[in-house]
């Protein structure tokens, strides 16, 4: 029996050799790498026009026009260039918001769950207040208060990533606290900060990272919504949201103005979602 099992396992291994180990994770990760490279390196390497300051005489050019692969928008700006530069904004905003959430919220949640008692109650009550808000509504109010800009968009969205990460991190911490190795660490006289940094953090990190990947998709969508409403990235600078808003005005005549940024948005969000989802199911199986 045991021999047969080992044999099967070995056979499984040898059969797997030479093939991609986890295609369901490598494939979306590869697509993501292409998207990131296209957005950040594309404008530097490819011979495309600037995203702003186009000539109005060249407006509404169709796709495959010379020099404008995807055509131009009502202001004569190159659509491909705007899609790529818009992607930069979306990715930078989403990354910043999720990093703030991961670091601030993750630490807050872990501390809250680790310390427990009154501290825990107070922190979680405060975060409950933030979570109670419909995110887009408060973000709109914050964005309007601070004025539209990239930094303010990040700040406004961080209002929501912090409590969300804190909840995930606290739940993970509470689950870990019951495990024997935590008690062992404490019995050894390990100082609390060391338990947090060396024993807790590495164990809750996978959950926070997968949550962050799903969070990337959510933030990209909300950033798009803010820019769509004119409260995110301010207008001449490109973003997928304000490109869609501009295209909406001539939706029936030139639908492609909406289709290109929408497709970029969908592809990017989908990739983050698939990657996050597949990583989560892989890590929960282990």
């Amino acid at each position: 029996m045991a021999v047969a099992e080992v044999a099967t396992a070995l056979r499984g291994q040898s059969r797997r050799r030479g093939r991609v180990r986890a295609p369901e994770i490598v494939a979306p990760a590869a697509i993501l790498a292409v998207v990131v490279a296209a957005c950040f390196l594309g404008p530097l390497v490819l011979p495309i026009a600037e995203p702003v300051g186009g000539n109005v005489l060249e407006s509404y050019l169709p796709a495959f026009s010379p020099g404008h692969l995807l055509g131009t928008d009502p202001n004569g700006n190159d659509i491909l260039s705007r899609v790529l530069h818009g992607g930069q904004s979306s990715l930078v905003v989403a990354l910043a918001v999720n990093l703030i959430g991961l670091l601030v919220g993750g630490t807050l949640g872990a501390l809250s769950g680790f310390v427990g008692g009154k501290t825990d109650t107070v922190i979680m009550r405060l975060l409950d207040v933030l979570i109670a808000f419909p995110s887009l509504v408060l973000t709109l109010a914050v964005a309007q208060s601070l004025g539209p800009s990239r930094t303010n968009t990040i700040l406004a969205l961080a209002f929501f990533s912090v409590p969300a990460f804190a909840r995930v991190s606290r739940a993970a911490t509470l689950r870990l606290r019951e495990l024997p190795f935590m008690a062992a660490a404490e019995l050894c006289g390990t100082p609390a900060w060391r338990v947090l940094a060396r024993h807790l953090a590495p164990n809750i990190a996978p959950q926070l990272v997968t949550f962050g990947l799903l969070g990337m998709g959510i933030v990209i969508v909300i950033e798009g919504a803010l820019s769509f409403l004119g409260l995110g990235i301010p207008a001449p600078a490109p973003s997928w949201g304000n490109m869609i808003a501009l295209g909406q005005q001539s939706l029936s005549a030139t639908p492609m103005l909406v289709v290109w940024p929408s497709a970029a948005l969908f592809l990017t969000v989908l990739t983050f979602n698939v990657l996050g989802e597949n990583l989560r199911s892989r890590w929960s199986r282990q």
Partner: protein
Amino acid sequence: MAGAAAPIRRGSRAATLVTSPSLRLIGRRVLTAVPILLGVSVLSFWVLDLIPGNAAQQLLGAEATPEQVAALEQRLGLDRPAVHRYLSWLGGALTGDLGTSLSSNQPATGLLWSHLAVTGELVLLAFVFSLGLAVPVALLAAHRPNGFFDRLSMIVSIGGLSVANYVLALLLVLVFAVQLAMFPAIGFVPLGESVGENLRSLVLPAGAIAFPLFCFYTRFLRGDLVDQLQGEDYIVTARAKGIGTWQVLLRHAFRNSVFGLITVVGLNLGTLIGATVIIEQIFALPGLGQLLLQAINARDFVVVQACVVVFAVVAVLANLLADLLYAVLDPRIRYGGR
């Protein structure tokens, strides 16, 4: 959310007054919602107080003299300290007075009421569409886990969860309003004028909100059903008794999954009313979202504040309601005194 309720001291008066376990539980949950509601009002007040420069200057424009600005500040009460202003605003809010709009001089409460019905109808329709479709689809998917239909519904779900609702809305307009001309692209017909036309004007906006929700509910419900079918003793018992697959699914698994679904629906309402803001803008529906955006553009912070607070209060109350419903429906929680 209020499910992780703060422990209330056993000996507190509120707890001893009521003896029925259900009522006591309801009382406890309602009490935990009060500080959250207060916190929400403080936060929305504080956020709007962050407006750079001062509100009076922005309302009057750059040419206003300092005397004019000071006069307006005094009229609006902006010269008083923030705590003072908050308390008087809260006092008004508790008696149903949310202030007077700066741009239209109408009472904010009246404006909210006149816009509430459209948003309410939109949200209700979105729930009907999404849940009405999600339940049968999830049941069919769970009937044969990893079967063709299950896989198809999973692919559709993850795709649907990745589409931004404003993109979906424009896509729906493009196909159903521009190409097929089946539904109007923008505009709203009140329910009182024509029921049919009213529904026609809301189908596309409600659909745009409902589709991602449908995907979310389908995934959730399907996952919960499959978990139960694979691991629970009562399912094994039911199957051992010779009960048919569909019966097991409907009578044994689904009835248990409903609890989780209720909580998720309650938690979603916050996101859902956030979604109405942008959808109402796209379809030019005169709802709360449109009121909020107009107020934001007009720098009418009284109305912005009123809208933000109403949105947040509705979200908190929806969570509370879901929590209570869950408690009342599930005997383990009703009598467990968790």
